[in-house]
């Protein structure tokens, strides 16, 4: 095994510098907005398909969209949030990706 040069020993410091950037990538949320055309039953079905929600949870989010105008249906890393928004657009729901805070 090769000796580790002194500069490599410092590599964990570099990792620590990267962590805050990775952390910045965490707080994204997927928001579904109200739309007078999409049927309530259809929106419920889409939430079940895309997020794997059970019927009760899917209906709760659907009602939140209907009554409050929007519902946060998922939050997490940006890449996955983008994928969910793309899927929701594929089902023709009004969905956006928003950074928390």
């Amino acid at each position: 095994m090769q000796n580790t040069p002194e500069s490599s020993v410092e590599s964990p410091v570099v990792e620590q510098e990267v962590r805050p950037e990775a952390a910045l990538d965490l707080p994204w949320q997927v928001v579904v907005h109200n739309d007078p055309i999409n049927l309530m039953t259809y929106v419920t079905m889409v939430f079940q398909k895309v997020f794997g929600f059970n019927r009760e949870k899917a209906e709760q989010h659907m009602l939140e969209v209907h009554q409050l105008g929007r519902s946060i249906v998922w939050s997490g890393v940006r890449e996955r949030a983008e994928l969910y928004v793309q899927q929701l657009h594929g089902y023709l729901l009004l969905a956006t990706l928003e950074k928390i805070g």
Partner: protein
Amino acid sequence: MEIRRHGEHIEISELDPFLAELLRQIPESANPAGVEAAEQRLFSSPTPSAETEMRAEWKLYVEPELRRLFQSSTETVGADLQQLNGKAKPFGNCTLRIPTHNAEAWLNALNQARLVIAAKYNFTDADLCDHYRSPIGSRRDLGLFQVNFYGFLQEFILHEIE
């Protein structure tokens, strides 16, 4: 008109020429070309903010995929609708059988058509709740009837595939 599940098909029978024609119009009605509001609705922004980079990337990478998906759905529906062409007597009732494996394409195409028509005629919530308006008053009234009729079909298909 009668609609029911029949094994691996959803069967719409006793379709009068008027409703059969509305069904034939699904693919054409789902096309947003030339209606800016409809284009904007089908290809809505992924972000409420003015993040131009994200919007540009979305337009470049995601929109083409969505266009392919939407086109594929309307093509599937168009192929199923071929059953309504040619066989029936000119003014006779006819039957349409939708394979249940095409149900998702139908839901998507019906939704596209409803959104495009609503954007085209700028329907308000009050319009959309008016289920008793005659479809023969104007082209706009016919559009409202289409939106409600297509919505009824969506409800039925959803109920049957659950």
